[in-house]
């Protein structure tokens, strides 16, 4: 059995006991989960190690609050992964810094390459900037970059072709970047 499989089995067992009210199992589960999350996030957010602990806590809290959505008997890894991914994308959205808009749009994690202390303000900027984009640019960005859908899902949802979605994201990001530069 591989390490990931063993961990899945062990943690699933702990989680099921925790859901039945076993506080000790729950503590073990959370500590195991913390270690896995930390390692997982460190590898992926290597340009932003300062935030790893914050995000880890953020995900822990989300797992705790949403534990009623885990169904015993189903694999635990996809459930935790989906929560972690959602929270990372959420953070990414609130931190999307000005510089990030100039960067490659194809690598989401690149967005973490630059830090932005004024998170709240940056988010408002994005909303304001996006408001003026035409739907064919705005919707793909909304779905793919902000909501974390895949290009295929965004295409299905908007009725656009996948290449139109990609082009829309690219053009829209460029427009927004140009606007930011213009306003500075």
């Amino acid at each position: 059995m591989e390490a990931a499989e063993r961990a899945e089995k062990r943690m699933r067992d702990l989680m099921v006991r925790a859901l039945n009210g076993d506080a000790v199992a729950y503590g073990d589960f959370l500590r195991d989960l913390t270690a896995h999350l930390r390692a997982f996030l460190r590898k992926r957010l290597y340009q932003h190690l300062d935030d790893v602990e914050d995000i880890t806590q953020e995900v822990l809290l989300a797992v705790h609050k949403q534990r009623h959505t885990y169904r015993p008997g189903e694999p635990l890894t996809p459930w935790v992964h989906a929560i972690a991914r959602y929270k990372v994308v959420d953070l990414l959205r609130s931190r999307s810094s000005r510089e990030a808009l100039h960067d490659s749009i194809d690598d989401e994690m690149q967005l973490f390459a630059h830090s932005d202390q004024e998170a709240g303000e940056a988010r408002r900027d994005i909303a304001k900037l996006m408001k003026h984009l035409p739907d064919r640019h705005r919707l793909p960005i909304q779905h793919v970059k902000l909501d974390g859908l895949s290009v295929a899902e965004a295409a299905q949802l908007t009725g656009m072709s996948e290449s139109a979605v990609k082009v829309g994201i690219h053009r829209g990001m460029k427009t927004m970047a140009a606007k930011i530069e213009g306003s500075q």
Partner: protein
Amino acid sequence: MKTESMIDVLMAEAGPVPRHVTERRFASAGVFGIALATAMMLVAFGLRPDIESAALLPMFWFKLMFPAAIAVAAMWMAARLSRPGARMGFASIAVAAPFVILWLMAAVTLLNTEPAARVDSILGNTWPTCVPEIALLALPAFAATFWAMRGLAPTRLALAGAAGGLMAGGIGAMIYALRCPEMEAPFLAVWYVAGIAANGVAGALLGPRLLRW
């Protein structure tokens, strides 16, 4: 806060977690949506006057079953989308199937209809009120479905919103069918579908705003 102390805090909240929360929330939303829509339909519009004779016709029952099937399939899909990492499986096919069946029926009906009568078969007598009344009757289910999902953890918000909207649209159309006198598949294929789809679109647009957690 140190992560270790955070774990201690969370541990202190450990305890038995209720089972089947997803199922119970969606079941409540469905019951509430159907009950309130029925009451609204009876008060605002009333049953179709010929309901007793209409109930003897297969089309009357198909007209109920088609939106009911969409509501059930969309509920299944929304419930899956409300749990992180759950696979959609065949849920999206189950949602699409009733539409496809209805459109096939409508196509067959139109092919067997005199060309001159085809437009009437699509427009019926009540097309201007069909979509808005379906939307009205879907409102309680729409609100209830979003309430159900807000207590869960959807991670694909637009898609989850769309599924929730389709569930509400299906419920609205089902109750509307009890009041609607139209009996032609082409009518349903255009106007019922539009009423249900409008709810799906509204859900997709509102999902990212209302379902964040």
